[in-house]
């Protein structure tokens, strides 16, 4: 690990803004995978997640001078990625190209443990998640896949804990309806 890897986000951001563009690679390495699962679950495939994370990182570089709190670069980058994921879902809906099983490199992981039933259930859950609203899906992904508390999600997204719970509880009911016969 080089010295640059030990630098704080603030130090790296300030170095990039001062003209040391190559330092941006530190932030790329630091955050490329952190939000990959979020993007993959929101968009339904690793390929789509790769595009989204790449776009978000490039856009963050473009807007770096507007990053008010470099110590909170991760949260700021997450908001950019989140906007990108929501926009992508809206674009696909407009084009009549909703997320589906064919997109789903992550939707039905190819398990080798022989638990066919488990795999089928997991695939059915992923299919059902695609039918939730983007907001419902997001809160489910962050809470039950990334293991975050409501308070943490609220801090990241700007929503209140009460509204997050409401979205989640509606998502539970919708998932129950969609997964009838699978559970």
């Amino acid at each position, binding site marked *: 690990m080089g010295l640059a890897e030990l630098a704080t986000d603030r130090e790296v951001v300030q170095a990039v803004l001062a003209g040391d563009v190559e330092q941006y690679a530190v932030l790329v390495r630091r955050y490329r995978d952190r939000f990959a699962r979020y993007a993959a679950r929101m968009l339904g495939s690793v390929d789509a997640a790769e595009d989204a994370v790449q776009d978000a990182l490039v856009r963050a570089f473009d807007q770096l001078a507007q990053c008010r709190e470099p110590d909170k670069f991760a949260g700021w980058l997450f908001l950019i990625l989140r906007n990108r994921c929501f926009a992508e879902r809206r674009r696909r809906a407009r084009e009549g190209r909703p997320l589906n099983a064919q997109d789903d490199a992550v939707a039905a*992981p190819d398990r080798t443990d022989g638990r066919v039933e488990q795999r089928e259930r997991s695939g059915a859950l992923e299919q059902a998640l695609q039918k939730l609203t983007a907001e419902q899906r997001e809160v489910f992904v962050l809470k039950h896949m990334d293991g975050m508390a409501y308070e943490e999600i609220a801090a990241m997204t700007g929503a209140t804990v009460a509204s997050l719970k409401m979205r989640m509880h509606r998502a539970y*009911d919708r998932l129950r309806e969609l997964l009838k016969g699978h559970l």
Partner: protein
Amino acid sequence: MTETYHPLVKRLLDGELSLNDLPTELRAEGAEALRLLGVVDRAPVSLPARLDARVMAEVRRRAYSPLRRAWRRLVDPRDVELRLRVRPWVVVGGALAAAAALALLVARPAAPPAGGRAVLMASRDSVYVRFILYAPDARQVSVAGTFNRWDRDAAPLVRQGATGIWTTTVALPVGQHQYAFVVDGARWVADPAAPGIDDGFGRRNSVVAVTAQGARTL
């Protein structure tokens, strides 16, 4: 009709209750709900290594493009060193003239500040922008923006007695600058007297445009 989970079962799914906390008649529904979470795939997702190279290639392309460099030259603040060769009597005369001008300025009644609006003044070589915020309860106020890389410590405002008015004057290079006030080191406040623009991330920035002839809020 849609079959919904009982509110206690939803709290079970939220992790606020355990299965044993549920009344007996709800345990079957609770067990079914937990099977839903049991199939959630929590495996990490790794993106291919090529992502780093692609991002950095794009970053370099943008950073070194002539257009971007021209824009950065226009909007980035920079230090300017001014070297003068003068005769001593010119300095003395200049100082006397400046003192006279200052005395005239101080003798004029002060105009009341217009809320939080940025008051704009120009000098010969640079444009000074005066930032004003009415914040009677604040313990400290600063102004941060694109001109000081959003450094909340770079430009503190000074409280004007017990009026609740905070002011500072900052020399800004020609160009358009986004800014906001930082109250008590943590709370970001858009200039109430200047129209703001969305920063793209759900917050508002105020905007000031600086030209060689002066400056104005947008």
